């Protein structure tokens, strides 16, 4: 309940943050929203020697649309949840933000933190996978763009290098006939998902599925992209037969473990049920708008 001691290092700007990271020699952790890190520290499950606070750095929180959608890593979840542009054209993101933890946590929790922490139970990763997003990683040496498929390596482990900070998330411009949704089954509001499914469909002008993105939350060591489920939809009209096949494939691709959120078999069934429901809603949105 009481955290161990640490040095507090508020970064003035990114260059200063990189400096502090280097000085930390791997013993320093980034403090963004703190809504995952501070609880860990209170139970002494994390004892960083120093916290590098990014909250004083200007220009890391924004939501800009310029063709694609660019979200600054320090954007708070409530900002994403209430943003009009996002609601209008990226409803799947609004829906994802709206079910992260509870409304109070969302006032501090950041989009970048939700990705960088790489908790398989976090909600944004599945949606970002479904959207084929990418992230920008900056360091003192420069910057690179990491496709989302390459970001999540293992539980609490991303492909970010120790000297890198995730600064931006990029969502591709939505095609004209596309839409998606995020469905999360939780034991109660505020909980992590028993299982969550993000589904994003793009249709061609004949109404067939041109591309499909299906991301799964908390049924593996990382968020998972259900590739076989996606393949089961591409080229079809996403009729009930295809939906059933895709849902079954997603369930088979998931790797849930039994815990206090339910037996593994149950979670697989939940993936199947939610995938079917998510595809139906994504299809409706792709066809008729939100």
């Amino acid at each position: 309940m009481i955290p161990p001691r640490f040095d507090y290092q508020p970064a003035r700007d990114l260059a200063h943050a990189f400096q502090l990271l280097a000085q930390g020699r791997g013993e320093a952790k980034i403090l963004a929203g703190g809504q995952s890190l501070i609880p860990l520290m209170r139970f002494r499950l994390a004892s960083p020697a120093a916290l590098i606070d990014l909250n004083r750095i200007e220009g890391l929180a924004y939501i800009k649309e310029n063709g694609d959608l660019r979200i600054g890593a320090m954007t708070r979840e409530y900002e994403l949840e209430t943003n009009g542009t996002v609601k209008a054209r990226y409803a799947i993101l609004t829906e994802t933000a709206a079910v992260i933890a509870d409304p109070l946590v969302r006032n501090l929790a950041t989009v970048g933190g939700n990705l960088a922490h790489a908790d398989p139970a976090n909600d944004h990763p599945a949606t970002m996978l479904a959207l084929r997003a990418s992230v920008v990683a900056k360091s003192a040496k420069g910057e690179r763009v990491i496709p989302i498929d390459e970001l999540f390596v293992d539980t609490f482990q991303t492909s970010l290098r120790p000297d890198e900070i995730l600064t931006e998330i990029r969502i591709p411009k939505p095609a004209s006939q596309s839409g998606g949704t995020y469905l999360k089954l939780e034991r109660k509001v505020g909980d992590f998902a028993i299982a969550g499914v993000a589904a994003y469909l793009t249709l061609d002008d004949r109404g067939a599925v041109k591309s499909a993105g299906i991301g799964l939350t908390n049924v593996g060591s990382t968020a998972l992209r259900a590739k076989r489920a996606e393949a089961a939809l591409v080229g079809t009209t996403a009729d009930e037969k295809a939906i059933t096949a895709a849902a079954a494939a997603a369930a088979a691709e998931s790797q849930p473990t039994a815990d206090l959120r339910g037996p593994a078999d149950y979670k697989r069934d939940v993936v199947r049920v939610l995938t079917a429901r998510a595809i139906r809603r994504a299809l409706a949105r792709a066809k008729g708008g939100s």
Partner: protein
Amino acid sequence: MGAELGGIGRSVKRKEDARFIRGRGKYVDDVKLPGMVYLDIARSPYAHAKILKIDTSKALAIPGVLAVITGNDLVPLKLAWMPTLMGDQQMVLPTDTVMYQSQEVAAVVATERYIAADGAAAIEVEYEPLPVIVDPKKALLPDAFVLRPDRKEKSNRIWHWETGDKAGTDEVFRKADVTVKEDIYIPRIHVSSIETCGIVASFDKVEGQLTVWMTTQAPHAIRTVIALVAGHLGLAEHKIRVISPDIGGGFGGKVPVYPGYVLAIGASVLTGLPVKWVEDRSENIQADSFARDYHITAEVAAKKDGTVEALRVKTIADHGAFDAAANPSKFPAGLFHIITGSYPFKKAFVEVDGAYTNKPPGGIAYRCSFRVTEAAFTIERLMDVLAIKLKRDPAELRLQNFIQPAAFPYRSALGWEYDSGDYGKALKLAMEKIDYAGLRKEQLEKRKRGELMGIGISSFTEIVGAGPSKHFDILGIKMFDSCEIRVHPTGKAIVRLGVKSQGQGHETTFGQIVAEELGIPVADITVEEGDTDTAPYGLGTYASRSTPVAGAATAVAARKIREKGRLIAAHLLEASPDDVEWKDHKYQVKGVPAKSKTMQEVAFAAYTNHPQGMEAGLEAVDYYDPPNLTYPFGSYICVVDLDRGTGEVHVRRFVAVDDCGVVINPMIVEGQVHGGLTMGLAPALYEQINYDDDGNIQGGNFMDYLLPTAMEVPSWETARTVTPSPHHPIGAKGIGESATVGAPAAIANAVVDALAHLGVTHIDIPITPWKVQAILKAKGVAE
């Protein structure tokens, strides 16, 4: 006059709100004394282990750590063990063996809260794990490891308790047309009031005076226990002051004595410094008194026309490592034998075996009225099981069987004398409010479409107000309760009670009783409780006993004052006392209403113009020994819809009709029902504490112990019938726990009802989505 007075039946707004809405409540953790130090506790990761070594050196080396206390330090002080409220004993700190995960192992005293935490984290203990028993059935096997070598009887059976007519009951079962039987497991849950437990203990070495601020629902009992347990340390009861300040929810969890309290008191006595201990939520859930953990096998015998005849129940009660339940001493299974419920069983037999396991001690702390929730759940489930078997509507089956109003006072087959009740009226009102007939029609239509909807009824009888001195005591102290009233010359009054509110609004409701009895506006009455230096001795607030017992004491004390006042009024009116009556909240000469005196005038006269030979003053105290318990009751109806894909249970509607006799403050009663229903919904669908085979807790903090939020809780619909208690001075019965007692069965019955046509007769609570989904899958109806 009626509205200003704020007497009985008025929804007077609460006086205690003034400080709470300003953030000026004074809870234990708000208490700050000069020189105060902090105590934190290192706890065992193992459920059962020998302690080989405790290394305190790293902790002691931390600047600011003043002392580390281990079991061996307590032995010469005779404090390593302490008595429990059930006549067992419990370790304060272990000397050689830990008995449950998160058991207290060592305490650290430091100058700062954060340093005390650092100190606790720096304690190093070497353990040698021992075999763990978490299943009470295994604990009761003849060759089981004896968990309590300190007990005379080398057995994990704590006690065997039974009541009723075994032979007669067995006979009825042998001959019965129909019998039903179910195994019902009610898992362990934890009360988790939003404020955890804590204490500030301050010992003045010069005066030999111990002052304690403590989260306790029973300050006087605690004072006596301290005097008995720690008297040899120089603590005498007249020099112990226990202050129960504002309490952030109790629900029974703040009745037991926890090791942390004893350690803080001991540390203060030894150092002469004020010592604060406030536990974390994880400690609270993982070590403090739990509730339920009853393994029940229950059977009903009935005629084929549905008339119930006999009830037979066998239970194993898992009490953890020490029997620290706070039951009245003659009732190790509490008031479980109310289990005949609202039905006139001619024969019944109940037996309970208490068992030790490697789990935290306790048993009844969760707003549950001394095992009445377990009893009500069982009988109400069994009635539905019987209805399913006989293909009868569960409402009709209940109406057919209910104890009829004319039968009261009704003596049950297990020895309780129910004071009053009209069960049919409550159920019919609930059915009308929820449109029961319409719901059954809807259910049939939905079933044809494969939609699963269920309607569940719970028609419970509660038993509260412990209790008559003939049968009730806690640690030998009889369960009376008390009220002292003093009326000042200017007509205002101060009322002091032996009970202690933790949110129930006593400062308002007990003022309302006095307002009604004495004609003093409730705004002119101060109600105090919780300070043992000033409050008359009482047994505290739990098991819904405040209104039945202290409420009665309040009315009786007020009537003593009123009687003295009548003599003063007669003196002022120059009339014979026989000609003066109390009418319309004042004293009047019979037949001459113009000749009257108010209580205010009488109060002034009590100090300035009382009759010669009469003592001055206007006050009284009453210690009320209730002649019987009281029996609130109710009928709840719940509607659920099941998600065939995820197994989720959505509570669509819930109508609660409660009867708590005469209602003092309808607003407060309704609030109690809302809160009680929520603490009935929670165990039905969300809350449980389990242990794996190694005794590791599953769900030991708020991430996994699922308290409902505003999003899980339906908009409760409440209504009332009023059947006064004939033996209570104001006809009131008590309401605090009724809804927690009655609600779980309504919800469980609703879910089973949604699946009964598929052959389901019972599902254990909590009814999680995966339990439901597994059933749907097995029955071939899952999405």
